[in-house]
């Protein structure tokens, strides 16, 4: 006859909890390793091959139903450099940088501006946005605007709700005739975008602000770059 004293019972249960607990925690660790890493979508604009045709701007406008007068994406032309007939122009892409540390998200009073945790895309929830324009004012890249139809803040979202949802590349990337735009996951070291960033001289703008932007540029190579 074994007597189950209170002392034996408590120590037994304690040991049981201890062992099962560690097993559970071990199991959890194993699972997290199998889980996919969250994506960090980024884009590279190769200024050395961009021809400034603005096909990207047109495609964006059409795909995302952006009205005339405002734009999510702009190609800024500067130049010419050199003498006729050997002149060149430089083209700079101005659009949302999808900052990892986004000021627009930090200032939003309603939580309408947010970073999608699975993709790293900075997006706006139209139902929550009240149009206060804090984000428009705070964005150091000057890429936000108030949508004339929806009266809410709007900007590039890498076609998250349009082309990406259909499993396609963003409209601008698809439209580019010289393949100057590369889009993909920076967390995947084998992705085209990660390779582009690794194998080319790249720069990002206003890194000193600590915004951690995700729009990379391959410099034009002539004159002073931004």
């Amino acid at each position, binding site marked *: 006859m074994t007597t189950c004293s209170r002392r034996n019972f408590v120590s037994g249960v304690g040991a049981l909890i201890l062992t099962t607990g560690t097993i559970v925690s071990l199991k959890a660790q194993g699972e997290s390793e199998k889980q996919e890493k969250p994506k960090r979508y980024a884009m590279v604009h190769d200024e050395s091959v961009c*021809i400034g045709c603005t096909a990207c701007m047109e495609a964006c406008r059409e795909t995302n139903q952006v009205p005339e007068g405002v734009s999510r994406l702009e190609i800024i032309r500067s130049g*010419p450099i050199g003498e*006729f*007939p050997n002149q060149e122009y430089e083209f700079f892409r101005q659009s949302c940088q999808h900052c990892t540390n986004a000021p627009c998200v930090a200032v939003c009073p309603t939580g309408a501006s947010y970073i999608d945790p699975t993709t790293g895309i900075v997006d706006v929830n139209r139902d929550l946005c009240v149009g206060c324009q804090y984000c428009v004012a705070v964005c150091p890249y000057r890429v936000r605007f108030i949508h004339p139809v929806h009266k809410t803040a709007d900007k590039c979202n890498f076609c998250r709700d349009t082309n990406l949802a259909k499993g396609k590349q963003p409209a601008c990337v698809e439209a580019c005739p010289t393949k100057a735009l590369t889009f993909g996951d920076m967390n995947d070291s084998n992705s085209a975008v990660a390779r582009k960033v690794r194998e080319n001289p790249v720069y990002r703008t206003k890194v000193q602000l600590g915004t951690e932007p995700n729009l990379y540029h391959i410099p034009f190579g002539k004159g002073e770059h931004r």
Partner: protein
Amino acid sequence: MNSVLKKFAKLSAVFGVMLFATTVQAEQAKTEAKQESPVASFEQKLDNVRDPNHYCAQCHNLDVAKDQAVGTNHAGKFHGVHLTKENPATGKPITCVSCHGNISENHRKGVKDVMRFDGDIFSDEKPMYTAEEQNQVCFSCHRPKDLREKFWAHDVHAMKLPCASCHTLHPEKEAMKEIKTKERVKLCVDCHGEQRKRKEAAQQMTTEQKDKQ
């Protein structure tokens, strides 16, 4: 008697007025004639001054239906603003030979004396004149500064691409006149897209050749 005299006086007065009027008219007509043909510029419109485009147009038919036209160069109608403009260098109207150069009879046999504007850069046939040779004809009147003001892309294509690749001078409506942004972008995309495809294909070929070796 008095009444007869009065009548005569009236009649003579009317005659006098009429005579005066005719002389005045004649005077006016003279002055008008003087204004029409001032002595300083002696310009006679003679029938024996032949229309310089006439000779070309005998074969390269103006305003003929396309199915009647012979050969690729003879197709279609010749329109366009150039036929109404003057050559800024000479002040004379622009004719066929202003742009197409000194043409001999042998141009029918393909002699390289007539300027042939060929805009198809993806053609397998090598054009008779390079883009630079072709464009120099255009640049003799069209200044780079004016072209840039019109559209920046003139600068980057200046001597690399024939003007005729985008511009069409002889159809009724010039293709680039008042072109919509979307159509213009499509031109860039089509041409540069094709270029990239060919480049990639060429690279593919060279790598395959290297693999074989």
